[in-house]
């Protein structure tokens, strides 16, 4: 073992194998006599050397870089070994340096020296293999390194030094969380993502005895390369999807009524019709592009979203519910928004109809949004994985497809000639179209009921009632007295504001599982009934818990198996300290979360590992009796 010692002036440093954001590690070219070979450099565990706002990895003050020299056959002594060394010494500024060192080795018995100790001090910090099993999960722009730790081996801190550029962000803080039998380390992913196939580097584990270094290497699943031909196909599909959207129950009524309206008007101003078509198209496309922009922004902020995300918010669902109820009501009655404005003059009418067409375009996209979610979710989800430019193209194509039928009809109204002459049937048809609207409203309510409790659903229904009432009042509001009309409008405003203010903004039950809040009594009840129970001790601030919930507990296979086997899912949320939960944890010798308990129909509960994977969990759930 030979070492090259770098003695640097105070506050100066040289670099590790991966220097971090700037700088570079040393090179050693060994000049060896025949028969001798040198290993590559054995790098002692590095230090973090921050250079705000950057982060570099290296060695302050002193380091010995090591190499193993071995002989392949007999060698002649004395042996002269030379090493040409190149390195950077840096403080605020960097100075490249090089030099040649040599050593003569004589034949003879081994004699211990102070050098041996020095070399050993560094040799022990050269990272060895990490003996524990570990896994890496990448979720929402962070890597999570998780591992079980055996008793007595406790680390106060862990830090990960990546081997290559483009994996993790050097400068950002890493978050270490220690559990009873495991730890988790959150490392922010690099913003420049090079799609590396391996998570490779060195971890520095510190405890009272000092620091130790281990090598980490874990395969990563690489994102599929972007497919250029796929894009064309996606654009075509988006276009077709847009076309089909026109006959979805959410959209069809709106459009058919719009078409009827312009059939009526079309008689006297057919030259203007195409104009309305264009304004409508503009409204549709702008709305779709706005949605695309919003999604791209959210995506680049690290949110893990796909299309359909809008239906994950009780707030959005409730507003859409009101909208559908109101639209249905408008179809039933004679209230058509904008109609009052249109009476001012013929000039203003044309102007307002253009605006109204534009607004109809926007409205059509808004009412289409719940229908697109189950229908086109995966296609749009895929579109979002594309570079932003392509995502825009896909949304543009979707909008064009969506607007096309109405645009065509407005340019060539003669296509409508197969329809009966305008007349009384139109009123009937319009009224009938209220039903698909209300059907959509019902469906939204059903979605909502999965997210909030029944009392909240009732509140939203009351809101719907208030909206309907206010529309009815508006329709009847024909008093000749001006102040009375304004008073009534004021009342309507209060009703509408009131119904919006009672909209829930938070989940009142959890999203994934039917979960019941833990209490000792509930647990005992289930135990007496000889039910199988899964008890999850968790907390919002517990990273390990959240990762487990994401990768294992909320996986489809797991939830399916739980419901198939009638396993009761109990959650003990320790986000806020709770005496009963603390007591329960103590029973199992724990002072903190996570803790996963699986109760068989009889006998003692099984304690699950702190690190859950889908496979581990499925195995335990299957074996439970």
């Amino acid at each position, binding site marked *: 073992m030979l070492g090259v010692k770098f003695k640097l002036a105070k506050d100066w440093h040289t670099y590790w*194998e991966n220097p971090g*954001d*700037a*700088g*570079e*590690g*040393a*090179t050693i070219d060994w000049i060896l006599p025949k028969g001798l070979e040198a290993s590559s450099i054995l790098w002692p565990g590095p230090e973090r050397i921050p*250079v*705000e*706002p*950057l982060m*570099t990895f290296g060695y302050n003050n002193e380091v010995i870089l090591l190499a193993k020299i071995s002989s392949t056959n007999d060698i002649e002594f004395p042996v002269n070994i030379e090493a040409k060394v*190149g390195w*950077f010494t*840096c403080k*605020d*500024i*960097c*100075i*490249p340096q*090089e030099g040649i060192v040599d050593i003569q080795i004589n034949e003879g018995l081994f004699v211990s020296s102070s050098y041996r100790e020095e070399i050993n001090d560094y040799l022990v910090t050269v990272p060895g293999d990490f003996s524990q099993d570990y896994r890496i999960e990448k979720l929402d722009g962070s890597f999570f390194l998780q591992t079980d730790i055996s008793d007595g081996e406790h680390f106060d801190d862990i830090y990960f030094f990546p081997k290559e*550029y*483009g994996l993790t962000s050097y400068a950002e803080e890493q978050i270490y969380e220690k559990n009873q039998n495991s730890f988790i380390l959150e490392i922010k992913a690099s*913003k*420049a*993502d*090079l799609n590396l196939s391996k998570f490779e580097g060195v971890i520095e584990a510190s405890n009272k005895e000092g620091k130790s270094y281990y090598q980490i290497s874990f395969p990563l699943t690489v994102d599929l390369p972007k497919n250029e031909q796929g894009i064309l196909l996606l654009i075509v599909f988006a276009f077709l999807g847009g076309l089909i959207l026109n006959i979805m129950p959410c959209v069809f009524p709106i459009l058919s009524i719009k078409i009827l309206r312009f059939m009526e008007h079309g008689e006297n101003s057919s030259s203007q019709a195409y104009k309305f078509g264009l304004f409508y198209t503009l409204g549709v496309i702008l709305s779709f592009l706005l949605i695309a922009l*919003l999604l791209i*922004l*959210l995506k*680049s*902020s690290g*949110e893990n*979203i796909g299309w359909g*995300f809008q239906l*994950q*918010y009780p*707030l959005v669902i409730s507003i859409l519910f009101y909208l559908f109820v109101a639209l249905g009501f408008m179809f039933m009655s004679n209230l058509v928004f904008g109609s009052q404005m249109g009476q001012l003059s013929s000039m203003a009418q044309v102007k307002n109809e253009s605006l109204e067409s534009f607004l109809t375009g926007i409205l059509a996209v808004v009412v289409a949004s719940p229908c697109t979610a189950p229908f086109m979710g995966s296609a749009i989800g895929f579109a979002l994985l594309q*570079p*932003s*430019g392509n995502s825009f193209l896909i949304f543009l194509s979707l909008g064009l497809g969506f607007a096309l039928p109405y645009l065509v009809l407005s340019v060539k109204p003669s296509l409508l000639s197969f329809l009966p002459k305008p007349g009384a049937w139109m009123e009937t048809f319009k009224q009938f179209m209220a039903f698909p609207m209300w059907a959509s409203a019902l469906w939204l309510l059903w979605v909502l009921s999965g997210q909030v409790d029944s009392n909240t659903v009732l509140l939203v229904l009351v809101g719907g009632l208030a909206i309907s009432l206010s529309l009815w009042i508006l329709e009847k509001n024909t008093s000749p007295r001006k102040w009375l009309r304004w008073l009534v409008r004021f009342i309507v405003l209060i009703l509408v504001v009131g119904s919006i203010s009672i909209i829930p*903004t*938070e989940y009142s039950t959890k999203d994934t599982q039917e979960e019941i809040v833990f209490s000792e009594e509930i647990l005992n009840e289930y135990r007496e009934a000889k039910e199988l129970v899964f008890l999850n001790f968790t907390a919002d601030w517990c990273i390990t818990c959240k990762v487990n919930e994401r990768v294992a507990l909320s996986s489809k296979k797991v939830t399916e198996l739980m419901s198939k086997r009638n396993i009761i899912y109990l959650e003990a949320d320790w986000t806020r300290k709770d005496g009963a939960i603390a007591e329960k944890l103590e029973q199992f010798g724990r002072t903190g979360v996570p803790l996963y308990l699986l109760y068989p129909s009889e006998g003692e509960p099984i304690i699950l590992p702190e690190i859950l994977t889908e496979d581990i969990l499925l195995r335990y759930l299957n074996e439970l009796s």
Partner: protein
Amino acid sequence: MKKFITLTFLIFYFPHFLSSYVENENNAPEFKLLDSYGNEISLSSFIGKKVVLEWTNHGCPYVAKHYETGNMQSTQEFAKEEEIIWLSIISSAPGTQGYVSSDEANALTITRKASPSHVLFDPTGKVGRIYDAKTTPHMYIINEEGIMKYQGAIDDAGGRGFMSRDLLKAKNYVKESLQQIGAGEEISSPVTKPYGCSVKYAS
């Protein structure tokens, strides 16, 4: 609800949200900086032309080697012939290595036979931080529409042993990417590891 808050936040703090890193295929953020002749230069005024950004610091040994070997100058000349705008940006804070006066900057351009379109001063480091410039040199290519197309090293000579490497034999990523953009091809390495000295930001 959390996502909603993020969303509102994003809409109102859009510029802030952009600071720190610009992914390829996104709009290169606008900036206005003074050049070495005292003119205010804005990125948006070059729409219609390709733009190369070069983060530089003449005292940095990496930069010095690229200029001593003529590697940087030949890349600049290549760009000039293609009518590509070349902006050399200095983000060194006052008092740190690489911080120069206008006269010094112009003298450096002449003595080094460099041909940037402009040498820009970013003493607060604001622009450097927005683009997440880490090293000198650190190179960026922006296309005619103002879209970021390439970011990283000037060539593949980085890594341990840089000082003894022959730069004229290295693969020049900037030239390659510019040629590929010109030919309408995919850029073969749109993100590479920038190498060099750290940018001497004001702390």
